[in-house]
């Protein structure tokens, strides 16, 4: 695994515009960054990333049945009591899931370490699945990269295939929803909607703020049509806490990701994985923080159960240096995880987002940040496979 500087395509911004990629620059800061790429060997991809992703995913899936049957675990994950039956029911009915992203620390040697699972509302999908693919294709065509260069990226194929598999059991149209004013979230659902259409699924989109509630507790679109199937790029725990939340269990709505997926997106899954697979080479030691936990010691990280984009994470490295990311998620319980510094390449900390589509490892996207905690300010850097 090496970080290699490369000339940007002079016309990449026009290409991005032509392909509907509108969030390549966020608040004036670069997000898509093709001034460099990461090169992996096929062995690194297959043995160190793909296989562990499959295994970690299976380990996580293996916990869901236990969690939904255990009030104690539901308590540990701080799952709101009013929604527990609904979540458990979605699991027992086998409601299918679409995708997830696990964040891994990996430096080219040794086992990748699982930081967390983003299994409810993962983003950075379009840039990994599509724009990264186009980048490689064009750089090869222009002689900037060798013809033999490949990429670990089966995302689009598997997304389309999974939508096609789900389609027969989904009421149509399938609605796609995200916060109205987030360019990034809107871009992500636009891409997923495109994949669904390619699979022959009829789709619509609606801003999460525009969803209506009917007199008979069903969710409606702006023309009063009942929304029976909804892909929501909006955290399930937010939906729970909001005004329409109580209507969810009786609305009959089918969600993607399904309700049970929130259990795996909860940081509490990390200590539960550690309890069950203590010492697994891809896991970091993790515990629930309790009232009697001592002050955070050097070599440990503290994360809220519900948190996104690195918010409210505190790291104390072995040398005692403390790194804090502020954020809004200070009202939940916490877990502690052994600190494992991200590898640094040319002054950039790189985290690997390893994708799972349905239940298959599907590819990677790499995000870099100048700080140890990967935030929403990170940059997406493409990768290739060369031997």
């Amino acid at each position: 695994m090496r970080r290699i500087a490369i000339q940007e395509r002079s016309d990449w911004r026009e290409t991005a515009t032509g392909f509907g990629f509108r969030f390549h620059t966020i608040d004036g800061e670069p997000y898509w960054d093709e001034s460099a790429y990461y090169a992996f060997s096929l062995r690194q991809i297959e043995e160190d990333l793909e296989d562990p992703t499959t295994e970690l995913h299976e380990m996580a899936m293996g916990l869901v049945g236990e969690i939904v049957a255990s009030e104690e675990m539901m308590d540990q994950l701080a799952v709101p009591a009013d929604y527990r039956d609904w979540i458990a029911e979605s699991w027992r009915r086998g409601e299918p899931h679409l995708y997830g992203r696990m964040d891994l620390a990996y430096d080219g040697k040794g086992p990748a370490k699982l930081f967390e699972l983003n299994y409810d509302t993962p983003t950075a999908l379009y840039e990994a699945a599509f724009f990264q693919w186009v980048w490689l294709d064009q750089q090869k065509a222009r002689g900037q990269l060798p013809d033999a260069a490949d990429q670990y990226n089966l995302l689009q194929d598997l997304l389309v295939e999974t939508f096609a598999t789900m389609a027969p059991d989904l009421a149509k149209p399938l609605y796609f929803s995200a916060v109205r004013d987030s360019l990034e979230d809107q871009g992500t659902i636009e891409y997923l909607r495109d994949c669904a259409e390619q699979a022959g699924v009829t789709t619509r989109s609606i801003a999460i703020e525009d969803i209506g509630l009917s007199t008979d507790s069903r969710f409606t679109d702006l023309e009063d049509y009942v929304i029976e199937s909804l892909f929501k790029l909006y955290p399930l725990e937010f939906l729970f806490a909001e005004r329409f939340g109580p209507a969810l269990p009786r609305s009959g709505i089918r969600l993607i990701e399904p309700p049970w997926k929130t259990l795996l997106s909860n940081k509490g899954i990390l200590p539960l994985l550690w309890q069950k697979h203590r010492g697994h080479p891809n896991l970091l030691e993790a515990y629930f923080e309790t009232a009697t936990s001592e002050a955070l010691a050097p070599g440990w990280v503290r994360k809220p159960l519900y948190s996104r984009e690195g918010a409210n994470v505190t790291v104390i490295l072995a040398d005692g240096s403390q790194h804090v990311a502020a954020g809004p998620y200070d009202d939940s319980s916490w877990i502690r995880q052994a600190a494992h510094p991200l590898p640094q390449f040319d002054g950039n900390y790189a985290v690997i987002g390893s994708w799972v589509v349905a239940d298959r490892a599907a590819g990677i996207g790499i995000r870099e940040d100048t700080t140890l905690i990967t935030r929403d300010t990170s940059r997406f850097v493409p990768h290739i496979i060369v031997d």
Partner: protein
Amino acid sequence: MKRSPTVRLLLMGAAPVLLTACEAQEEAVLYKDATECVAAARLTEDQCKAAFDHAKSEHERVAPRYTSQADCETDFGASKCQSVNQGAGIQYIPLMAAYALGYYAGRPNYYQSQPLYYSRTSYDSSGGYVNSGGQQVSRTTGNATVSRSSMEPPARAVTMSRSGFGSSSSAKGGWGGSSGS
């Protein structure tokens, strides 16, 4: 190769490539009323009436809605629209012109019924029956092969409130303006 052999965009890109998906077909029958249904002798009189009553009871709730009578009559013909008021002011809906019975695949003898409307503008303006979602079902009554989705028209409901979701992103301080991770 460790990557998708092709990628494509239908909606997102400036130049979409359109694929036509095959849609499942199924058998259905259309009747103008219970009398025509009984005459066809495929269902008993009780079944015909029950199916008709069901479609009729759904009609006002699910029919396509217009804010002007003229717009409604453009699609469905002069004197073929009625006014309704379901709490959203006066609206115009077409008269129920027929009803359709679809057979669920794998569930013998189980049928559902839904109201149909005779649209002058459907079938390239030669006219035909459409469902409450405006989807073409068949040009004529009687036996028909229809797309499965036309037998499952979108349901409607009376919305009483909106903006019940989406408050957390602002309540959480607009974290990067984004809810994903």
